[in-house]
């Protein structure tokens, strides 16, 4: 019996603007530690909404979310921020970087916040991640000066910096060419296999999904397979 890292029980969510409409319908999900999961579905079916909720950023839902056996539903915002910092790496659909900082600083900031390692060690680790993603040469550039694909890879490096148990990505390879897409896939594969980290990634890339451990398909706010 494998250890369950993430579990949802009857998660339901409504949007009230412009009119009340149910975006997530009774989501029951179990994710095992070390699993590489793909989330697929048509545009607008609620994938991003679910990811924000699983990553603890969105707290406005009904049902229960447990990560590492800990019930996170109803926890205070600051507690969840600390929890994300330590346990969850998130790659946004639109790569969000701090524009006034260099690529390297962007990757380092969550680790500096966690404060587990001294700054010199954090810098070394951040460089390693950038190297792994093939953008070490962009380390000292302002993040706003990078191309979309480069920014996305910096965002992935940032998600990995604190060695989180859970890595979530909302179309993490959406902006990448097939070479870089393959590199990211290989990194994810390695993280799950060698380091026991868990990946949940929304994707439109059929190859990417097909090569992952499990595919979850969503349609109209429900999990359909």
């Amino acid at each position, binding site marked *: 019996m494998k250890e369950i890292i993430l579990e949802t029980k009857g998660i339901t969510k409504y949007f009230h603007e412009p009119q009340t409409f149910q975006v997530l319908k009774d989501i029951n999900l179990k994710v095992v530690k070390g699993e590489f999961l793909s989330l697929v579905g048509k545009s607008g079916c609620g994938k991003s909404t679910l990811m924000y909720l699983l990553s603890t*950023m969105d707290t406005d839902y009904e049902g229960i979310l447990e990560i590492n056996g800990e019930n996170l539903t109803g926890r205070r915002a*600051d507690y969840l921020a600390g929890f994300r910092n330590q346990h969850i790496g998130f790659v946004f659909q639109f790569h*969000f*970087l701090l524009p006034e900082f260099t690529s390297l600083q962007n990757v380092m900031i969550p680790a*500096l916040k966690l404060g587990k390692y001294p700054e010199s060690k954090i810098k070394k680790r951040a460089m390693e991640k950038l190297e792994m993603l093939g953008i070490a040469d962009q380390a000292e550039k302002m993040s706003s000066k990078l191309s979309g694909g480069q920014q996305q890879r910096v965002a992935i490096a940032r998600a990995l910096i604190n060695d989180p148990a859970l890595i979530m990505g909302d179309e993490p390879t959406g902006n990448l060419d097939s070479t870089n897409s393959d590199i990211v896939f290989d990194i994810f594969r390695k993280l799950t296999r060698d380091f026991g980290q868990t990946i949940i990634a929304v994707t439109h890339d059929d190859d990417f999904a097909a090569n992952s451990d499990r595919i979850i398909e969503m349609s109209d706010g429900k999990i359909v397979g």
Partner: protein
Amino acid sequence: MRVIFSIAKTHLLAKPKQSLVAMLGVTFGIGMFVAMVSLMSGLNNFTEELTMTSSPDIHIYKDITGERVSILEQLNPGGINFVHHPKPKNESQKIRNAFQIAELIRQDPDVLGAAPQLSSQVFYNFGPVQLNGNIAGVDILEEDKLFGLSSKMKAGEIAGLLTTTNGLIMGSGLAKTLSLSVGDNVTVTTPEGVTISLKVVGIFQMGLGEIDNIRSYANISTVQKILGKDQGYITDINVKLVDLYQAKAKAIQIQSIFGYKAEDWETANATFLAGAVIRNIMTYSVSITLLIVAGFGIYNILNMTIFSKMKDIAILKATGFAAKDVSGIFMTQSLVIGLIGSVLGLILGFILSYLLSLAPFDGGDVISIDALPVSFDPLYYVIGIVFGVATTAVAGYMPSRKAGHVDPIEIIRGI
């Protein structure tokens, strides 16, 4: 938290002009505060010191204008008595046994000295013109001990009074008006109509117009003579204390022991002290107004910064920064603006104060100075920096708090 500080620093440096403008607002406010308060307290201290050195800590005299029990009240105590508009009796202002009282007071270890004296209103005759003034009959050596008179002499010596029977040491303003110099004679007339000729043996300058323009010193015996009084006639005893702030308590003690009115310097100079308070209120209210304006500037700039950094705030919170961390980033920015702005303000204030202290200024007849007296008390610089930082802290608090409570999901979803 170093990361918070370094993010704050990056934000400040990303918009150097905006940060500088916010800083200069504080600089200007603090600079003006320091300059104004230095000048005001310089003036206050200067005049206070003058008043202090030229007036006694405790002045003992016989209060003849005080309330008096009417004869009707004495005869019919407790009855319904109406006495309309009672006036004081023609009482002598003499302090009995004044020399013995002075001697007793001097024995108190808290007392620096006690000088019996008498004074009289006089008219100084200047050709056909009569100038109003007064003459104090003093023991000149004791007076020198209390008020350092010898250091205030502009011409002649105080010892001249000891060797000249009808000698007079005159205030500089008075001497100038009467165009008198040492060795000249002046005739004075008392309110009782006695006229006497006196010889000027010295001219002093206290620096305060209200003394220099009206007062002269003579021997006790000289003044007793022009008033036609006996050798025991003394109207005042001036006391100087080791610690002038004990004056109030000491005055009460003296009054109860000897039965004469004893007035401490604080009561005597109440109007002057009230003036100082009003000047301080003005200084502080102008400075606080300037600082409030600077505070609004910081508030605005911080609000703008936060508005343009909504996305960054959302990212920080999504990657693990708590509300207090985000508030901390913006609070740090406003405190850095406040701190650097205030330090620059202190420097500006110092430069302004220094320039003021060099500016030539003619005190005219009122006070004799040739430049503005400016205080360089470090206390005002401490108050300045505390004010500056406190203002920016207050101005930064609301926007920073708001930034801390931004819900990241709203922004992330909205893009």
